[in-house]
């Protein structure tokens, strides 16, 4: 036969779950009505605890999750890559990816202060946020950007690159979109490459700069900020392999000589 509940056992059960008073506890309270105060205090503290745990998630968290989902599912349904792939695809990927990762690990991630055209210092984190927000906005408002093999007019594309101080030496492999964009009020060029595991966004921002290569991870994306001339190139994708491949394809075809 179970012995009647004592005070110690009552307090123990109360702290296990203040919201639940089982039959045993009810019986104890009936015999010790002054212990109702302990229940009241425990539940008061529990309300505080609930409030303390209830931190607000970031604004647009749900939208970012759904947008990333849209981004990824469009990548799953992209058309097949051209049959004729250059041989470095098989040969070069290993060492290139290793070199990139080594550089990224060596440089690490740190907060830098950059200069904006207005002269006011802005942080790398601010630029990352602006870039990721821009990409998500594009995916939401212009999902055709993510479609493979969107038609591109060659002379228009040349002009776009000239506009950001770059020269397109030859067609960029797997490029499906190139267009003007505005990131955080600064004009730039937005390019989309259809890499093996999905689309990669590349932004050329001639009026924003970083002092050295910077890698970041945000909102489910992985990215790099690369200094070029007085500006920067941002490459944003899902994983390091994508970034390495996109970087290779982009810089094989684009130069930033003065």
């Amino acid at each position: 036969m179970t012995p009647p509940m004592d005070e110690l056992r009552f307090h123990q059960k109360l702290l296990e779950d203040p919201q639940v008073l089982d039959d045993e506890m009810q019986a104890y309270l009936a015999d010790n009505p002054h212990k109702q105060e302990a229940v009241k205090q425990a539940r008061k503290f529990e309300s505080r605890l609930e409030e303390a745990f209830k931190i607000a998630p970031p604004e647009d968290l749900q939208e970012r999750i759904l947008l990333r989902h849209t981004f990824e599912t469009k990548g799953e349904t992209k058309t097949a890559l051209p049959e004729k792939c250059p041989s470095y695809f098989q040969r070069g990927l290993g060492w290139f990816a290793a070199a990139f990762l080594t550089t990224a690990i060596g440089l690490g991630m740190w907060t830098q202060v950059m200069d904006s055209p207005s002269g006011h210092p802005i942080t790398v984190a601010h630029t990352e946020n602006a870039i990721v927000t821009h990409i998500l906005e594009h995916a939401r408002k212009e999902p055709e950007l993510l479609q493979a093999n969107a038609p591109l007019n060659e002379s228009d594309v040349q002009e776009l690159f000239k506009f950001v101080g770059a020269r397109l030496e030859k067609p960029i492999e797997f490029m499906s979109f190139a267009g003007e964009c505005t990131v955080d009020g600064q004009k730039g060029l937005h390019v989309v490459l259809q890499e093996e595991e999905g689309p990669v966004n590349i932004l050329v921002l001639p009026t924003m700069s970083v002092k050295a290569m910077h890698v970041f991870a945000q909102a489910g994306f992985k990215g790099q900020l690369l200094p070029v001339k007085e500006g920067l190139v941002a490459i944003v994708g899902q994983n390091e392999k994508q970034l390495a491949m996109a970087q290779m394809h982009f810089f094989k075809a684009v130069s930033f000589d003065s």
Partner: protein
Amino acid sequence: MPHTQFFQQLVRTYSNDLFRLAFWLSGDKTVAEDLVQETFARAWKAIDRLENEQAAKAWLITILRRENARRFEKQQPHWVALDSANEIADSTPTPAEQLEQRQLHQAIYELPVEFREPLLLQVVWGYQGDEIAEMLDLKLATVNTRLYRARQQLKKTFEAGKPLSKGGRV
């Protein structure tokens, strides 16, 4: 597409509480968002196997815990959370309430994760002791003990940190 609609429903229903769980496990709101993103990415890949929302809820928590454990293996978490927790509080409390909330956040921060986790599952997610035991692969008695010790420690730490009342003595 029913899968997409089901997925969207899961995101709308559970993303906020998943973020809270991730935040209190990882101590960093950026990491927490990444954990939630990764959790839903994995959920989408297995959406065919999810039968109903109730099963999906427990499954999402399991994925998130595993992702956090995987991340923990790579690096020890460092709490940058306290200021973040205070900055992004849901409501706009009075200064006295703000101070109390800061003290409680500090107390939660000081809880060992093996106490914090079952408490989160109970308070934030509303799970009962036996459900928590199954999710964490623990005995019910162990879960109950951890819940008891968590609250006991929180009350002690919180009470110890509170300002003295007028004319009070240490």
